[in-house]
């Protein structure tokens, strides 16, 4: 077991810097999810920790060692790849044992470890099969088994569930979480799926364009997003952003409506999550409904802020019916209103 420290980490391909001065501390036994849209550099960051990409600047510590120059095999890590990367010509047993065999661990010990991991993952009946004879979920288990038998200090997951169907993904997600809690191995997990990120991670690192937008627990990210990007990325449906102007403690929306809650001064962006909008008789936020989505447990109303083109989504619990064109008034609790500076996109306190 070990902690991981990223210090001022930079990755550049030629003159193009793709990761900009990333700092972060991952505690021993912690499950950290790196999340962001495609192309944000999250996989690159993970691969740098794995040793599959060179480090342009800064340091990576695993435990008390600087591992910048170490080969992947010497970093005491195990990685689960998106497409599993099982060796197709080896049986499940051989796949799991290959790394141990290279380390010249005794046959008995290898068998013991492989069978133990197979029992944990319930893949014992498939040990003698070839990967192509297994289903996607079973291959995923084998890939995890291969990581477990190594008994590493760190698990690295590179979007391991994205090749599975939706139902299996939910099931495997829970299993990965349970497994990680049971083994207590420090883990880094990369995904673009924010639900996966929220449910799996002790903490989330939100990456955008090679910058860390925010690094915190899922609830911190949800309740107090530091930037507009995080605010829009975490939570589904995404947060509503309304351009507004603040003067003397009063927020004026673009349609002239006024709210008594305000942060900052001048032009701001007011962010309110769809689920935090409540119907109120005297609500200041008036929405013209254009479309309704009945999801059973809740209802999504798509529309625009009255008198403007600003699109809005409202999520109401239970069944609500509203004909297109209906105008509804909403309000939100002060702690659920987030203010951002339009130029820096940062949160205003």
């Amino acid at each position, binding site marked *: 077991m070990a902690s991981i420290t990223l210090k001022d980490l930079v990755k550049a391909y030629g003159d193009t810097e793709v990761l900009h001065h990333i700092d972060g501390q991952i505690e021993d036994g912690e499950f950290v999810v790196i999340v962001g849209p495609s192309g944000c550099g999250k996989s690159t960051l993970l691969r740098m920790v*794995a*040793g*599959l990409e060179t480090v342009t600047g800064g340091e990576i510590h695993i435990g008390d060692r600087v591992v910048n120059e170490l*080969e*992947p*095999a*010497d970093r005491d*890590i*195990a*990685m689960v*790849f*998106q*497409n599993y*990367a*099982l*060796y*197709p*010509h080896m049986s499940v047993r051989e796949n799991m044992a*290959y*790394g141990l065999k*290279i*380390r010249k661990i005794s046959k008995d010990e290898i068998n013991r470890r492989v069978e133990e991991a197979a029992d944990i993952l319930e893949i014992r009946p498939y040990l003698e099969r070839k990967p192509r004879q297994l289903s996607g979920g079973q291959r995923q288990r084998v890939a995890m088994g291969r990581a477990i038998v190594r008994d590493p200090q760190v698990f690295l997951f590179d979007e391991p569930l994205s090749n599975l169907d939706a139902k299996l993904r939910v099931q495997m997600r829970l299993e990965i979480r349970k497994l990680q809690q049971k083994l207590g191995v420090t883990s880094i997990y990369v995904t673009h799926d924010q639900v996966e990120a929220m449910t799996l991670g002790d903490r989330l690192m939100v990456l955008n364009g090679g910058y860390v937008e925010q690094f915190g627990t899922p609830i911190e990210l949800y309740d107090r997003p530091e930037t507009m990007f995080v605010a829009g990325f975490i939570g589904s449906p995404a947060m509503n952003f309304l351009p507004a102007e603040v003067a003397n403690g009063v927020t004026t929306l673009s349609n002239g409506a006024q709210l008594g809650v305000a942060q900052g001064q001048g032009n701001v962006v007011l962010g309110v999550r769809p689920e935090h909008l409540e119907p109120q008789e005297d609500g200041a936020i008036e929405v013209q409904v254009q479309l309704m989505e009945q999801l059973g447990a809740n209802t999504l109303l798509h529309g625009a802020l009255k008198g403007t083109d600003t699109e809005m989504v409202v999520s109401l619990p239970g069944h609500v019916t509203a004909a297109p064109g209906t105008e509804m008034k909403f309000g939100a609790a002060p702690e659920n209103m987030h203010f951002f500076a339009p130029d820096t996109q940062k949160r205003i306190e």
Partner: protein
Amino acid sequence: MVENRPILTLVSHLVLIFGVVLVALPIWITFVAATHDAVRMTQAPIPLLPGTHFLENLKATLFGSGLSSAEAAPVWRMLLNSLAMALMIAFGKIVISLLSAFAIVYFKFPFRMGFFWLIFITLMLPVEVRILPTFEVVANLGMLNSYWGLTVPLIASATATFMFRQVFLTIPDEMLESARIDGAGPMRFFIDILVPLSRTNIAALFVILFIYGWNQYLWPLLITTDNDMTTIVMSIKQMLEAAEQSPQWNIIMMTALLAMIPPVFVVIAMQKLFVQGLTETDK
């Protein structure tokens, strides 16, 4: 296509049978000729049904000096020479091409693509084109009349290198990364992962290269003067010209028959892998 038109079936079968007969007839005649005695073979018309001298001819061909002219090596020796040459060429080409393709695909070194194109350009330089300089080099190295002289100049293969390069390019990068995390060094990765994954392609190439090696004619003719180094393919031609006498067709045809057997055997034995290797794209 599922159709039931008797006329069409009949016609297509006739066409197919005609094709088979066209291809098989010369082989049949070779076989028939190899079963008659020398006298019968000089009479017209040539026989179309097998005679009774098969074993006799086989024995005379394999262990006699083939033809009555005494200086020629026995045919079993020629078969052995041909086999050695074909195997050395096939294995040599496969090993060298695997290694060069491995270097070109998996290692970053200066002028990597330059080297690749250099190898590729040698496609335009088969033995026939560079025969004089190659002979000079082989002669200077003292490799005349040896298996090395027979095989080494034919071993470098751009085609095989190119084919293995394409095969390696289809193997996902994660395989390499996974092996690196497992602690496999480059050669270990090559032997444990790449070679087994290219198994069917290696087999397909082996078939092609074995036949290529077996059928070599011009180069062995040039490089060997010693009768003990004669290969079977070149000997057939020599038998026809042998010692101012009428050709002994029964012996010559038996030799031709024997020359056909090893390639046929290789093709049949490796047929399944051969087809897989040339058609399968999924890794």
